[in-house]
């Protein structure tokens, strides 16, 4: 592990795009589907997850020499749960309306497998600097995915973005988009789109190799 050269830039891009936690790794589906019925809810959820992930990664990486292997998962969970609870209280005090909308899903960030996964797979084996960059990338990727889904669902479901009407009062809302099936549909179509992009890129790469291999 430690032999790998540190490349913060690549670690960041990895989370944001190439290994995007939602579109590529398909992690953290519960908040993804449950709270993305509007852009603002998606942003709040993404922001809360962002804070928890970055703070936990920082702490886990800093303490990685003192955490015994046998109790590492329990310790990670304690660390994550602490940050989640703090986020829960803070959000309730600062933005009560959003907090009410997100309801039980804020405490459920503890169960977001993406966060625990990053601690186990990355933060516990890398330097603090890299761990934080990795967390920043993954959290941004998650935020990006939540926001995309929330924006699509709000635009079609309410004809608005961040509560600002886009098409005037005569817009016919797509009720299904606000309801759970709309979340599944939109997520499925986005996953389809991203795997299509990946496949196209691979096809292009193969084609390019063939061209280069061809004798002049």
């Amino acid at each position, binding site marked *: 592990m430690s032999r790998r050269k540190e490349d913060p830039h690549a670690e960041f891009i990895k989370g944001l795009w190439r290994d995007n936690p939602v579109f590529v790794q398909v992690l953290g589906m519960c908040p993804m589907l449950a709270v993305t019925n509007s852009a603002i809810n998606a942003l709040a959820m993404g922001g809360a997850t962002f804070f928890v992930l970055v703070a936990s990664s920082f702490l886990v990486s800093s303490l990685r020499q003192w955490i015994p292997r046998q109790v590492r998962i329990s310790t990670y969970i304690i660390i994550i749960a602490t940050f989640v609870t703090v986020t829960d209280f803070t959000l309730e005090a600062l933005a009560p309306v959003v907090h009410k909308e997100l309801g039980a899903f804020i405490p459920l960030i503890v169960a977001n497998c993406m966060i625990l996964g990053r601690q186990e797979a990355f933060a516990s084996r890398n330097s603090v600097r890299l761990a934080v960059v990795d967390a920043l990338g993954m959290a941004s990727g998650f935020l990006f995915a939540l926001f995309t889904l929330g924006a699509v669902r709000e635009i079609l479901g309410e*004809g608005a973005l961040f509560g600002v009407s886009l*098409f005037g009062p*005569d*817009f*016919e809302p*797509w*009720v*299904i*988009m606000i*309801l759970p*099936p709309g979340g599944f*549909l939109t997520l499925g179509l986005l996953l*389809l789109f991203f795997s299509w992009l990946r496949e196209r890129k691979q096809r292009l790469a193969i084609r390019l190799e063939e061209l280069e291999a061809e004798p002049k």
Partner: protein
Amino acid sequence: MNRGEPKLRLQASPLLRQQLTTRQAMLDVLLALMPATLAGIWFFGISALLVLSASILGAVVTEWLFSPAGYRGSRLNDYSALLTGLLLGLTLPPALPMWMAFLGGAVSIGLGKLIWGGLGQNLFNPALVGRAFLLATFPIAMTTWSAQSAPGEFFRIGSSTLAMPFMQPGYDGVTAATPLGLMKFERVSTDLWLLASGNSTGCIGETSGLLLILGAVYLLIRRDLDWRIPTGILVSVALFSALLLLSDPERYPGPLFSIFSGGLLLGALYMATDPVTSPLTPTGTWIFAVGIGLLIVLIRVFGGFPEGVMYAILLMNSATPLIDRYTQPRVFGKGGSSR
């Protein structure tokens, strides 16, 4: 469960059949639907024709757009997208905005068929997937029924039909409740002859019961239709309704009303019989049909919606692979217990 995935599907002899291509079967069904379609246009005016065209266009354009470039011509040539679009259009309210019908056609083909891998791979009936999507997306527009066009108003196009894409429809015509809605919410029955002849409110293609039966008879003669499915549905609906009628004649409609009202005939004759989404074995077909019949009556009588044909068929569609699995003919001479 020690049996693996069945590799070979068996049916009793005679195995020799007339030559039947997908294209020919689709053409037969299209032809069989023509009388009911024309009657729908006759009753609901030119608006209904526009709605039908929009849903067909949505289906065909989507099929064309998402087929690999090399197969485009041949895919469209089997007329299956056209048929899906028409079937969807027939289940839509006549005053639905054209843009919604177009979207429904696109969803039918895109989410109902192509995403599963194309013709023959889909689990659910594509036209009903489109309709379920529309009902969940635009619940009000999908349950606003325009009355039949008055004499001399055949060519009048309602303003709702021409609503701008993504915009709310404004209704200028006369709206009315469907026979099933009247039954459920006001306990008013509708004359049986009006129902059978098509002279009532409802989706474009569901009203003319007798013409739908006429088309099905043609399909039966051409052997494009598995007679067990409609028979199973109609008999189970009739029996179940008769039982309910006996228990409380004040509350429940009779068997004939149940059969001729709503989309039951259209669904039983043309949608449940879709060979792709119904079971293959005769036993399985009976289970499938009776399941649909019971679900229809259950949803209509005890559910929140006045009509249940669509959900009944979709639910049984999802049970089809399971039914197929458990009704495989026994393999003789293999020994061992097969559960």
